[in-house]
C-alpha cells in the first residue's frame, strides 16, 4: 500500500500555517458549502462517510453528533480534544503545528452541525506551547477574514474558538476529565451516564472530538462520503495517520488509507528494526494497547482487525520494541506512567497502578518472587472495569499481555535475578526515581 497525502496535503507547503496559503489550496471552501446546507444534511453526510473517531475509541462521529438533543435548554458546546498524551502518539501535533486552519475549518463545520454557538474550545495539552501559539495566530487570521465571529459569511451563524491550555494531566484526554478541566476543576472523570451529549461542559450538551477527526470533516464536505469511503474498508473508512516510534529506522507520522498492514508499515515504510536487531514486541495503539508478538503483526491496522487480534488500534501510536529491550523494564516504564497519571479518584486504579509499578520494579531489580507473574495478573483483575474511566483498563493492557505472552522472560528474570542476556540496560537502577 502506498502512502497518501490527504490529511497532510498542506504540511509540506512553505508557510503552511498561514491563511493565505490555506486559501490558495482551496481552504474554507468546505465552510462555505456546509453553511448552505442544513445542519441535518451535514450530520447525515458525516454519518454516510462511516467515519469513526480518531481519538481512540473509534466511535462513529456522525452518530455521536446525532445524540445531541435539539432545543436543549442550555447552550450546546463543541470541544476539541487536543490533549494528545498517550505515549506513542504524536499525530495531532502535526496537524495543529503545520496546518491549523484545517482543524479550525473542521471545527466551524462541526459546530454548525451540532448547533453549537457561540464558543468552542481547543483543549490542547499544556506542553504543546508552540502548537497553542500557532493556533492562536491562525484563529486571529480566521477572525480577520470573517470565518469566525458574528454572522459567518452572512449565514447568521455566530461562532468563535478559544485555545484552552491544559497543564500536564493525561487524564484530561478522557472526555469527562477534559470537560472538568475546561470548567476549571481538577481533571477527574465523571460518572456516566449522563453522557456528555446530554449534560457536558457548563451543564449543556457537549460533543468532544479528536483533532484528527475534526480535520477529516472539511475533506468529507468537499469530496463527499463516497470519496471518504474509498479509503479503507467498510466500517473502517478514511485516511488515517499512524505514528510509529521506538526501535525503527524511520520513526514518524505516516498517512495511509485506514488498514495498512502492520508488518508492511514497520519493515517497508519505516525501514525495519533499528540496528538490524530482531523484533520483540509491538504496541499497536498507544501505551494502553495490549502488546503483539512478532508472529501476530501480519494484520491490517483498522479498528476491527486489531481488536480481533486481542489488542486495539486506539490512537494508532505504534511503539516498536526490539530484542535488546527487557520486557519487564518496558512494562515497568508504562506502569510508572499510569501510576503517575491516575487521577486518584477511584481506589482500584489509584492503589492498583502503584502496586503494578512496585511489583514490576522489584522483578526488574532481581527481587521478584516466583508467584509475582500470577500476582500481576490477579492485581490486574482487581483494577480492570472497577473504576469510572478507562485509565485503569489502559494500565492493565500492557501488563496482562506481556505476562501472558512473555511469561518465560518474566520467570527467567525472577529465577536468575537478571534480564535476559541479549538485552541492554536502558536505565540505571541506582538512580532515584522521583515520587509521583
Amino acid at each position, binding site marked *: 500500500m502506498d502512502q497518501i497525502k490527504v490529511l497532510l496535503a498542506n504540511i509540506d507547503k512553505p508557510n503552511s500555517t498561514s491563511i493565505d496559503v490555506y486559501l490558495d489550496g482551496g481552504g474554507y471552501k468546505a465552510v462555505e458549502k456546509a453553511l448552505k446546507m442544513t445542519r441535518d444534511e451535514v450530520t447525515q453526510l458525516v454519518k454516510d462517510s462511516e467515519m469513526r473517531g480518531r481519538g481512540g475509541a473509534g466511535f462513529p462521529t456522525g452518530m455521536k453528533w446525532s445524540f445531541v438533543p435539539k432545543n436543549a435548554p442550555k447552550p450546546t458546546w463543541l470541544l476539541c480534544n487536543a490533549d494528545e498524551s498517550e505515549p506513542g502518539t504524536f499525530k495531532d501535533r502535526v496537524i495543529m503545528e503545520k496546518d491549523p486552519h484545517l482543524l479550525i475549518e473542521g471545527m466551524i463545520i462541526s459546530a454548525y452541525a451540532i448547533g453549537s454557538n457561540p464558543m468552542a474550545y481547543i483543549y490542547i495539552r499544556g506542553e504543546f506551547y508552540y502548537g497553542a501559539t500557532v493556533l492562536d495566530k491562525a484563529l486571529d487570521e480566521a477572525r480577520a477574514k470573517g470565518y469566525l465571529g458574528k454572522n459567518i459569511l452572512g449565514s447568521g451563524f455566530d461562532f468563535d474558538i478559544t485555545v484552552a491550555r491544559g497543564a*500536564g494531566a493525561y487524564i484530561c484526554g478522557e472526555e469527562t476529565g477534559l470537560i472538568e*478541566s475546561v470548567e*476549571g476543576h481538577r481533571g477527574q472523570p465523571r460518572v456516566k451516564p449522563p453522557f456528555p451529549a446530554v449534560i457536558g461542559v457548563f451543564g449543556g450538551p457537549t460533543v468532544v472530538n479528536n483533532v484528527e477527526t475534526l480535520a477529516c470533516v472539511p475533506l468529507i464536505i468537499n469530496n463527499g462520503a463516497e470519496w471518504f469511503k474509498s479509503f479503507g474498508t467498510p466500517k473502517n473508512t478514511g485516511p488515517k495517520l499512524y*505514528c510509529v516510534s521506538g526501535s525503527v529506522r524511520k520513526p514518524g507520522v505516516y498517512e495511509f488509507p485506514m488498514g495498512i498492514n502492520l508488518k508492511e508499515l514497520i519493515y517497508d515504510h519505516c525501514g525495519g528494526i533499528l540496528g538490524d536487531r530482531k523484533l520483540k514486541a509491538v504496541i499497536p495503539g498507544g501505551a494502553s494497547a495490549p502488546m503483539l508478538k512478532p508472529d501476530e503483526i501480519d494484520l491490517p491496522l483498522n479498528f476491527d482487525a486489531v481488536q480481533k487480534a486481542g489488542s486495539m488500534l486506539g490512537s494508532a501510536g505504534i*511503539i516498536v520494541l526490539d530484542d535488546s529491550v527487557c520486557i519487564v523494564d*518496558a512494562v515497568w*516504564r508504562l506502569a510508572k506512567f499510569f501510576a503517575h497519571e491516575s487521577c486518584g479518584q477511584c481506589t482500584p486504579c489509584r492503589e492498583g497502578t502503584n502496586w503494578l509499578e512496585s511489583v514490576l520494579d522489584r522483578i526488574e531489580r532481581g527481587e521478584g518472587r516466583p508467584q509475582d507473574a500470577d500476582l500481576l495478573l490477579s492485581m490486574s483483575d482487581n483494577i480492570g472495569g472497577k473504576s469510572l474511566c478507562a485509565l485503569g483498563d489502559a494500565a492493565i493492557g500492557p501488563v496482562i499481555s506481556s505476562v501472558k505472552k512473555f511469561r518465560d522472560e518474566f520467570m527467567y528474570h525472577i529465577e536468575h535475578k537478571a534480564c535476559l542476556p541479549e538485552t541492554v540496560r*536502558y536505565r540505571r537502577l541506582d538512580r532515584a526515581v522521583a515520587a509521583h
Partner: protein
Amino acid sequence: MADLHPDNPYAPDRFPDRNKPVVFPPEAKKKFDYILTRYPTKEASLLPTLHLVQEVWGWISPEAVLYVGELLDLSPATVFGVVSFYNMYNQKPVGKYHLQVCTNLSCMVRRAYDIYDHLCDKLDVQPGATTKDGQYTVVEVECLGSCGTAPVVQVNNEYHENMDVTKMDALLAELK
C-alpha cells in the same frame, strides 16, 4: 530562547517579594481581563490564570494562590487543589532553565535515561531539584507527545528533539 527569563517583560518581578502583595503587573492584568471574556464562568478561567501567574513569577507561590482565589471568587483550597493536581504548575521556584527529559517508553528505548543521568551528574543535582546557582532544574517527565523524534528534552516551553548526550552538552553551553 527561554520565555520566562530574561526576555520576559516581567522578569524583575519573577520571584515575588514576600513583603509585597502579589499583584499582576499591568500587561498581565490586561491578559487576565481578556481571559475572563473567553469563558462563561469565572471558575473556568482558573487554569489560564494560573498559567499567567507562572508566566509572570515562574512558579505559583502560596501568596499567588490567595491572590488568584480573590480574583476568581474561589477558596484558596479550591485553587491549591487545582495547582497540585496538574504537573505543569510549579509549587516551588524552578531554575532559569527547566530541563524536562521525557523518559517514557519510546524515548527510553532511544536512550533518554542516558541524557537524564548525564544532566544529573554533570550539573550535580538530584532529580527534580534545582542547581545551587538557580540556573537549572532537572526533571524526568512523562510522554511529551513527540515520540517520533525521541528522545525529547523540553526546556521551559521549547521542545528539543532527536537529542543525545552530545547535543545536550551543546545545548547546555547555549543556556547560560
